């Protein structure tokens, strides 16, 4: 268990980090393609780059899905691990990238922004995210976190002429660097205390029990803060509304889902592999018996309890008073982070499975919602106010119906994926006896229902006040929206398939050793 895996061969490499390899190599090739297409017409260039990116993501998903499912291995001296858990989250993030890329083709054309680096950054962001989720090594986590983040900072600033975009991206960059710095401090303290950067070795050290609590706790708090920042949990959420509002709509959708999935995924990995010693005394990985007996449980559980509650309350409450739909969805994403955190507190298999399911469902509904938002927008910031949505239900019936479906899913009403996802995380928390948190949580979702339904009533129950001209609709966007919508309904009616896969994925966390 302890011996470092030195074996290195290409097949092995391909099996463990094929997803990253495809994305990095393809990303580099895309740079080349972009240069070749430089002279070509904007239209052709945009289409080629876009479709190539879609193909790259599809290929990555294909590789991830067809990869040896039962393989549990690490590579590069225990830096990257391949297990069902990281595969699952990688697929979620690549799906987010795929949907975003499909929508981007239309989005960039509508906004006259056809530039190749957009897609290249998108590919690298996903490559970084997959690397992050596969890392077992804290330093590699930091590096891949930065790879992902830098790409996203640049993407958030992509609307060069929009001061909102620049402001948001700059805030994101400054605060994000701060968050990363905290994380790095935590890593340094861990290294100083335990002498290792590998989370499994760290876990063994901690489960040995012979450690001084204070430095571990300080490091833990700092690492948590770094991740909370990316997860947009209160009180690390201040950047969210500005960035989500300013960034290109499609990128906002991507950010809110892929980055959240990466942050939640790696946070759970660090928490349940590294900090809460999950090794049973016999040395066999055993979740059920040990998680709740963990020495650090009393420290982190109350923290996440409060942060989850605050995220749900503050996110939902402030969202009510927003007038810009992207800002509203930004606050709603803070609230959703709170709901997912409820599943983490439960600290049982159901909870982790619920979070994974939630991440997938949230990816579908959130990217779908932002896809509709960009279409109704026409050009960025032309029609983003909630007031602009008045009476749209009768002018653009299909778009409005799709948006309503995604919003109803976010509100957590059956029969949609959002309801099942919330059911899973709350059921897990109730199983562990967190009745109060669950009760308060569902009450906040009533607040949530209020502002989601407000968009619906504006669309269907008010007369229009101004003419809203939606942008031309691109075929790939429609396909992406339909995929998202079907997914939301399918997972709402028949969640068992995905849930059982998610369950296998969370079980494999124990196998990382």
């Amino acid at each position, binding site marked *: 268990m302890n011996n470092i895996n030195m074996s290195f061969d290409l097949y092995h490499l391909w099996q463990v980090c094929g997803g990253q390899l495809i994305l990095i190599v393809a990303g580099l090739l895309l740079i080349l393609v972009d240069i070749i297409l430089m002279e070509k017409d904007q239209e052709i260039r945009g289409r080629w780059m876009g479709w190539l990116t879609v193909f790259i993501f599809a290929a990555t998903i294909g590789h991830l899905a067809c990869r040896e499912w039962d393989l549990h291995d690490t590579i590069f001296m225990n830096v990257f691990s391949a297990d069902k858990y990281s595969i699952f989250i990688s697929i979620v993030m690549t799906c987010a990238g795929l949907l975003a890329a499909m929508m981007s083709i239309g989005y960039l054309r509508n906004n006259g922004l056809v530039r190749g680096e957009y897609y290249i950054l998108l590919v690298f962001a996903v490559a970084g995210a997959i690397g992050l989720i596969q890392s077992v090594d804290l330093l590699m986590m930091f590096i891949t976190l930065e790879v992902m983040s830098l790409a996203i900072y640049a993407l958030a600033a992509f609307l060069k002429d929009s001061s909102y975009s620049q402001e948001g991206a700059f805030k994101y960059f400054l605060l994000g660097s701060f968050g990363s710095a905290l994380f790095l401090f935590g890593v340094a303290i861990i290294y100083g205390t335990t002498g290792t950067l590998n989370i499994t070795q760290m876990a063994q050290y901690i489960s040995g029990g012979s450690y001084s609590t204070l430095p571990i706790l300080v490091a833990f708090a700092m690492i948590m803060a770094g991740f909370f920042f990316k997860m947009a949990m209160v009180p690390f959420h201040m950047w969210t509304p500005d960035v989500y509002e300013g960034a290109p709509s499609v990128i906002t959708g991507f950010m809110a889902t892929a980055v959240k999935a990466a942050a939640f995924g790696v946070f759970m990995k660090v928490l349940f592999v590294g900090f809460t010693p999950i090794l049973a005394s016999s040395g066999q990985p055993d979740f059920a018996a040990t998680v709740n007996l963990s020495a650090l449980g009393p420290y982190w559980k109350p923290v996440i309890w409060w942060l989850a509650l605050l995220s749900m309350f503050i996110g939902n409450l402030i969202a009510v008073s927003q007038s810009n739909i992207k800002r509203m969805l930004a606050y709603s994403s803070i609230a959703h982070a709170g709901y997912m955190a409820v599943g983490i507190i439960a600290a049982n298999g159901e909870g982790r499975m619920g979070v994974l399911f939630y991440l997938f469902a949230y990816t579908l509904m959130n990217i779908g919602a932002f896809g509709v938002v960009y279409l109704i927008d026409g050009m960025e910031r032309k029609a983003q106010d909630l007031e602009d949505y008045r009476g749209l239900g*009768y002018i653009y019936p299909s778009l409005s119906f799709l948006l309503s479906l995604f919003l*109803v899913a976010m509100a957590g*009403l*059956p*029969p949609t994926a959002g*309801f099942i996802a919330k*059911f899973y995380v*709350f*059921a897990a928390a*109730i*199983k562990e006896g967190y*009745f109060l948190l*669950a*009760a308060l949580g*569902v*009450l906040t*979702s*009533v607040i949530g*229902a*209020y502002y989601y*339904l407000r968009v619906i*009533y504006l669309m*269907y*129950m*008010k007369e229009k006040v101004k003419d809203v001209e939606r942008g031309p609709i691109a075929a790939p966007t429609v396909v992406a929206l339909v995929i998202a919508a079907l997914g939301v309904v399918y997972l709402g009616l028949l*969640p*068992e398939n995905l*849930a*059982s896969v998610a*369950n296998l994925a969370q079980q494999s966390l124990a196998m990382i050793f």
Partner: protein
Amino acid sequence: MNAPILTYVTFLPLLGVIFIMAVPQRSEAGKNVIRAIALVASLFTFLASLRIYHAFDASIGAFQLLEDHVWIPSYGIHYKLGIDGLSFWLILLTTFLTPLTILSTWRAIDKRVKEFQVALLVLETAMLGTFVALDLFLFYVFWELMLIPMYLIIGVWGGERRIYAAIKFFLYTAVGSLLMLVCIIGLVYFHNEHTGHLTFDLLQLYGTSMPRIYEILFFAAFALAFAIKVPMFPLHTWLPDAHVEAPTAGSVILAGILLKMGTYGFFRFAMPLFPQGSAYFAPLIIVLSIIGIIYGALVAMVQPDIKKLVAYSSVSHLGYCMLGLYVLTRQGVEGSVLQMINHGISTGALFLLVGIVYERRHTRLIKEYGGIARIVPIYSTIFLIVTLSSIGFPTTNGFIGEFLILLGAFKVNKIAAVFAATGVILGAVYMLWMVQRVFYGQVKNPKNLALKDMNLREVAYMLPLLVLIFWIGLYPNFFLKKMHSSVEHFINQVKVEDVQEQPHNFAAANNILQLGEVTVLKVKE
């Protein structure tokens, strides 16, 4: 017999939705086609539900026509349907009222016809699903599914303050039902801990033994959800708004069927699942029901708006239903079930009648009318008959329901019965006073002189209701005999557990002891 008839009935309206989607609604002809499809779909649903009538065996008290398929195996969630003597009647009431409401909207809803009919049919599926679901998760899914179509029906096609009313309706219901969801999950895990069996199946969850305090808490959450829907006295404020602002069809469905969800929830879930909790809260609920009966009647008396008056009368009538359920005698419970049906018929009919006159004059204020009996004789006659049924005049349905409830109440709680009986008198006061002001005396308002009487379509959808009013009033046994065994079963379920209080307390004490031991062990560690 093996055909999944409950599934057919529940999802037949959705078939209509698919057809409606294909029809464009630009032209008047298209709109008529849409209305016709909706009507046919709901009529077929009604016909299919008559098959249930034949298949239903009244001698069995337990659930029948069961259908059971695994849905989400890892959580023990099943697609499980079944009916008993109560849901049997409520299903028939639903499938019976829906075609009538669709017929009533033929002219009243002229904009966005397609969306309206789709919402109505989806709502019908959700309502039927709520009545047939025997799995708590499935029940909850249908229960929540009702919200969105009703929210749209009130909010899109309603009156002036429709959005306020729609949101109020939604938020009130959502708060209650989400807390109920938490307690459903809690109950399921509690059951799981003690039997090692994770299931949402209602039949298995019945009789889960748990400490009294848990029963009280769980019951409180369930009761809150259902009491909002009923609505019971302090939680009723959404009802007048929703009723007044909703279009006629919405009010009919709301009063006729949605309110029954609350009493149905008590009957099916809250009381049999937590008999001790129910017993603990029984005095409070009886008092609140009586307050509801009297308060609803008093407030109805002073309403200037006919529709609002009818809405408040619902508060009063549903108070009877709750009282009947809680006296836990056979007469009381059967009266309560019958009163649910009665209220669906009578109040539904009243809302339809108010809608008819509103379509012509676009006002519902009592003072705008007066003496119209001479101008619209057919309308006035029907209105009077429905009024008499609503106030419980002998030979009409209302009389049987209220009489049975009061009879049942008198056996166990004389004071409650006396207070509740005053509601009958008050009911007569507010309804007859309103009828007098609207229909009799001199015609004061010249606008009323041109009022048209009911046309054939309107008579057509009122007639079945009138038939039922007298049918129940003259031969109630036809209806009661179908529910005898189910009601007995229900009373046994709720009462027997009550007697066995002793062992439960032991179980609770044991639990506490165990908890104590665990704590001691932990401390030692």
